[in-house]
């Protein structure tokens, strides 16, 4: 049984924790041992959020060791770069290319890295980097909260879990009124990631 260490990163309010819960529950349903943990600071919104999801035959530490992440799923590209050093050589990075500049950048006190810098930085570890503008692509659903399901759809192609397992896990965690649109966002991510050139 192969092991998969995933790091899900983003900004508070983007749905990182729900996405990582769903990955964990899907992997458990598929017969894996799972541990997942979130590191988030105080308060509700706006801060940097990172979730560790570990899938394997037997998982000990809930936190992934630096340099051992297999798959990075970043809901925001600055937050991808912040955790790049957690990737192992040869890792996969799936990055929402939409920028959410932090306040210090808005106030002009700090600089947001350029796309080239981000790609170069992640490229120190990752073999494959998929930049995909999930924010624009999910706009048609009319709800920013579909971004996490879109990103989950992208990530699902790299994990050995069957589509129905994913959809069951999503259905169990979102309200019935939101189910259809979330599954649609998941399907879109799964489809669009195939078209991304790297």
């Amino acid at each position: 049984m192969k092991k998969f260490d995933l790091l899900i990163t983003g900004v508070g309010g983007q749905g990182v924790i729900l996405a990582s819960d769903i990955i964990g529950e899907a992997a458990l349903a598929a017969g894996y041992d799972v541990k997942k943990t979130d590191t988030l600071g105080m308060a509700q919104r706006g801060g940097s959020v990172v979730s560790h999801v570990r899938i394997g035959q037997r998982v000990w530490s809930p936190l992934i060791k630096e340099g051992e992440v297999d798959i990075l799923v970043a809901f925001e590209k600055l937050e991808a770069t912040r955790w790049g050093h957690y990737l192992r050589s040869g890792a996969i990075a799936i990055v929402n290319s939409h920028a959410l500049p932090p306040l210090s950048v808005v106030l002009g006190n700090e600089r947001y890295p350029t796309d080239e810098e981000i790609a170069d930085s992640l490229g120190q570890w990752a073999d494959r980097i998929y930049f995909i503008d999930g924010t624009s692509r999910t706009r048609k659903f009319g709800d920013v909260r579909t971004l996490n399901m879109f990103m989950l759809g992208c990530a699902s192609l790299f994990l050995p879990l069957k589509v129905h397992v994913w959809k069951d896990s999503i259905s169990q965690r979102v309200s019935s009124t939101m189910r259809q649109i979330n599954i649609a966002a998941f399907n879109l991510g799964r489809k669009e990631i195939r078209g991304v050139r790297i």
Partner: protein
Amino acid sequence: MVNVVKLLSGNEALALGAYHAGAGIATAYPGTPSTEILEFIARFDDVYAEWSTNEKVAMEVALGAAYAGTRSLVSMKHVGLNVASDPFMAAATTGVNNGMVVVSADDPGIHSSQNEQDNRHYAKLAKVPMLEPSDSQEAYELMAYAFDISERFHTPVLVRTTTRISHSKSVVKVNRSRVVPVSQAGFQRDVEKYVMLPVCARLRRPLIEERLVKLAAYAETFPLNQVEWGELHLGVVTSGVAYQYAREVFPEASFLKLTMTYPLPRNLIRHFAAQVDRVIVIEELDPFLQENIQAMGIKVTGKEFIPRVGELNVGIIGEASGTAGLVAETLPQHKLDIALTLPKRPPLLCPGCPHTGIFFVLSSMGQRSKPPKAKGKAPKEPKLIITGDIGCYTLGAYPPLNAMDTCACMGASIGQALGMEKAGISDKVVAVIGDSTFLHSGITPLVNAVYNEGQITVIILDNRTTAMTGHQDHPGTGISAQGKETKAVELEHLVRGMGISDVNVVDAFNIEGIRTVVKNSLDSPELSVIIVRGACSVQVTKPSEPRAVDTEKCNGCGICLLLGCPAIQSEDEQVYIDTALCAGSACTICQQVCPRQAVVPKSKIKAAKSQ
């Protein structure tokens, strides 16, 4: 529920374990990382669950229940146990009748706390047994033992968890269902046991020592203390999440995993140590196990190379053990060619936050910030001193608001403000405290300020919820932990009842109103209270029209940026408002502070463009 496999957080597992163990009463005050324990158990109809006003009260309610025939669970964050330490010590002295379990959720690494402290010392201080889970499965299982130990040895039991255990999900085999012990609610009067007059307390004192001896004997056979034999050249004694990390760092070693960490199973430890060539202790924070084992005369190392500060992980333990020669030293896997300096992303007050307006007013009155475009002199020294407290609003300390000068512990703002005034400083002192924090521990210092003739201004930020920990109700909301409508405490009646006459209530989204009230209070020679009232924006569901910037009117002065609102962005020197984030007509703070009336409802811009 029997025989299902679930992915549960440590907190959920503790709550489910307590529920299955027959807990009838659960009490808590919200605090990261402990909050979800009560939230989870409150969902069961056959448990009475309450948010208590603070941890001391929560402990006392749980103690009363355990005197009177019901198993009780009380949970709190590590600093909550400081607040509750008085009744905790009392509970340790009187003992209990039915099971009482106290959960302390420590926060190594200070993810969301004001300090780092190792609450294992409380078990030794109070001379009560302590259990520590190393994953959710153990968190679930140990609750049944905890209640049994409590009843068998007539003692409260401390269950100590940490952020990483509480907030990690792992697989739990749920193999029990709820069993409620057959005991009727009822209180057996026993003055020598329950009335701690000195004469009675002196009778209890030797019983505590006797209890500890019995507990130490029990620890020897406690089934969750487990030896896992590997190679005998290295033996690792460990507990909690450190066990998981150590298993990865020393895959071949022998392990003694302790779940009961006070009192320690001395014979088990001696036996284990005798079988291996070298014994090390891997534990987070203080050398608690290490010093207790050393006191038995066993040669053991640990904190000589494992850090005492912060949260551990596999990398830290691996590196430290490499330095100590226990494992091959690991070379850094990657050579970093490009080290970018990335902008930080601290948490912020949300768009539409009812705290933004008052902090903007305090910040501008105290001359703490200047617009990004403003040239010339640096901001002057603040003319106000703002003592702060614990909650979302502590984020007001960050730039650009810079509107907080102290934050110590729950309720400290009011006492600190009075102390500064009595010390004779020339600046006016303002204390800022949230509604839930005020009810938790702001009432007594405010009574103190009345009694001792303080002239401070106390600002209560009343957003009608305990926002930071995830919107729990409190006595001011009038809704119970189980969603029942109950009596609401009216803050203005409460403070007037203390004898304060200068009390004002002001709308959190009215900048001019706030400015006037604050100015009047600062000019007043008497103690004053301002209640700034406005709903937490995360809880507002009413649709609201977003604001937008009229770029023809905007001259880029940057005053709106001083609010620190995440919805206000700027690109190529032009400020704009992110429609998806803006709280709109429910807030309008930026519209009120714009000196050029350039912030308008979004529809007005569209209408102007289409003309």
